[in-house]
């Protein structure tokens, strides 16, 4: 086998692997509503989104928690913009799964790098509480 052939075969193998990996890697955003009537405590999952995608989520007024999470710690999570949402109360934003930890306890990583969070919530903005972890950079 010539040296050139080895390069071609190797490249194809890498490309295949990357393709398979990309297909498997993504991130999602979910929001969970409150449980006080008229809210019903349901959870809505949005996505999956391809790595690095910027996502805008229009939250319902019942939303009380948002989770941002990826399929693996190597997935880049794009910039998340939260819009609308509740008029008052707390809105917990968790980079990861589960609920917001309010103690000094290491959270589980939600993904690789993250392009950050912005909000354009309704007037009467609730208190947005944030916590979580990523394994990569905050960009």
């Amino acid at each position: 086998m010539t040296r050139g052939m080895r390069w071609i075969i190797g490249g194809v193998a890498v490309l295949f692997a990357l393709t398979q990996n990309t297909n498997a890697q993504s991130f999602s955003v979910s929001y969970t509503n409150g449980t006080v009537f008229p809210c019903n405590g349901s959870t809505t999952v949005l996505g999956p989104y391809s790595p690095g995608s910027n996502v805008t989520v229009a939250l319902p007024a019942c939303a009380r928690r948002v989770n941002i999470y990826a399929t693996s710690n190597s997935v880049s999570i794009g910039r998340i913009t939260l819009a609308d949402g509740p008029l008052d109360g707390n809105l917990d934003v968790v980079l990861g799964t589960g609920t917001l930890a309010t103690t000094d306890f290491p959270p589980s990583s939600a993904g690789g790098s993250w392009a950050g969070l912005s909000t354009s919530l309704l007037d009467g903005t609730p208190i947005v509480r944030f916590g979580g972890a990523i394994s990569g950079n905050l960009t």
Partner: protein
Amino acid sequence: MSQISRFDVGGAVQAQIRADNSINFGGIFVVECGSVSSAGSIVLENNSILRVLATGFGVNGPIAALTGNIGVIETQNGGPLLADVNADMGSINQILVDGEIGSTSTSPLIRAMDGINTIDAAAIYATITSNAGGVGGVRRVRTTSGPFVGALNAYRIESATATDGLRITGNLDANVTIADNVLRPIVITGELKSGRTLSIAGQMITATTPSTTGSLDIGTLRGTVRFTRTTQGVRGPVTIDSIASTGRLESSSPLESGTNGSITVDGNMAGLVQVSGSVAGAITIGGELDGRVTTTGSLTGALTIDSYMDGLIKVGDNLSGTIDINQSQGLRGQIIINADNMSTPGTWTGPVIVGSITLDNGASGDYTAPYYNALPSVLGGGSVGLAPFRIHEAACSPPPNTFGRLVTTLYSSFDDGQVGAIVRHYGPIENTGIIVGMRMDTNCNWYEALSSIFDPVLHPGGDLRAIGITCNAGMAIKEGIWRIVPDDLACSEVVNNPAVVWQTTDGCAPPNATPAYVFEVGPDCNLNDVNDHLDIDIAADSPLIDDLDTSPMNDIIDTCDGICACDWEHDGDIDVPDIFAFLTSWFAVDPSADFDASGTVAVPDIFAFLSCWFASASNSLCNP
């Protein structure tokens, strides 16, 4: 967002993490990351940051708690802190940096209003303020292996654990301003760099109750340490390995006894130690004193120098304590007492010990203070002067009022610009205001020679305590009695530079007696630098037998009988310069210009001189 509880970033924080946290929900604000890059930052608008931890490449972006406190900022694995840290409305508990804070090219600001507990780093290049608009102190600012470059402003160095304080393992190249007390040690193992000032406005206290251990320990002092409090500023030990020529240690308060205050320089001291007020405590210099120690009050305590003293010690008022130079002939510099020139003059009642010699007012012989007779050479070349300074009679050359046939000051002593007469004082002098005169008769009439004849020489031979006279080129001092009167001769290194006080007079009866230095110039007609009377009486036999004055026996060396009087320069040559020299004397109405001995200096004297000059060719004395 409103609030952050805990945010872990495995990599770098390359963006801003910001929360307003307007209503603290009881959570925490913790950011743990690999690093905070220069593009990143962490800002909390309200309440406090609990912890920022960078486990990798340090903190390169700013961290601020705009209204609250900052708990801990920590870097690990050698990570630096290269950006500002602000708690402008609160305090900073700990900044623990495994690497360096700042760098030689980056100097971040670390600022709090209500104090900073601890800053630890390998080295610090930063401006640190713990009392920005407030009264916050610091408990510990420490480098473990490098310098502190920049500045530190703090209200206090607070009393805390024994390992706290300002502790720099290296050089302090920073201005440090402590607005109040220092209750823990300041230790600088290297230098306090030149041009830098460590200023303490409160007290540096070492006491058992409360358990405070304020002290100052510096390797080499090249900058300035300034205690600005006017009472009991130094209440703990100051220990310095050495003070360079640029180094200054200034206390605006007295160094009091019984307050634990002391100043110790283990090695040489080439700079300045200045105490405003009295020194009742101890100042000890383990090496040489090449610099200055000054007080504006009395020295009632002890100033000890273990080696040579080449510098200057100024005691503003009384010396009732002890100055001890533990080196034989170790006083090579100057000690001044009453240097503040007090309206009630300071006195010298305490001992000045130089090796085995003690100068004090109870000593006997040559060592009785303040106007001792011991020559400077006995002490090492230096002197102790009680201001305003008198003449040190024994040290003058010749001693004042030394008369007689065998005086050794001859007119040849002034040849070739030599300083023929030197008046020495107990302390340094300045200005050159003196009047030189020759006694005309025994009725206290003096001819005051003009400046065209004599030049004063300030500090002849580098002696700062002396003034002498030389004859101008072509002029010659004449045999006879002379006096020097101080006219504008002042004490230097003394407040307001008072005039010197000459205790010797010109011998005139009161009230005409004038403070003066009087000396006699003897004859040396054969220009052999030996008084003619010694030449005449070579055998020094008694009764005197004139050996060289036999014919005629007229008290003049025979070879000088009919001496060539027109050799006006006394240089053995009869030449044109003698004419000009004579005319200079004549125009100055110098008594010696009375060439025809008429009693007045007049025109016939010129003709008489010229007759001698023109006849010199036939005069064997003038033309040997």
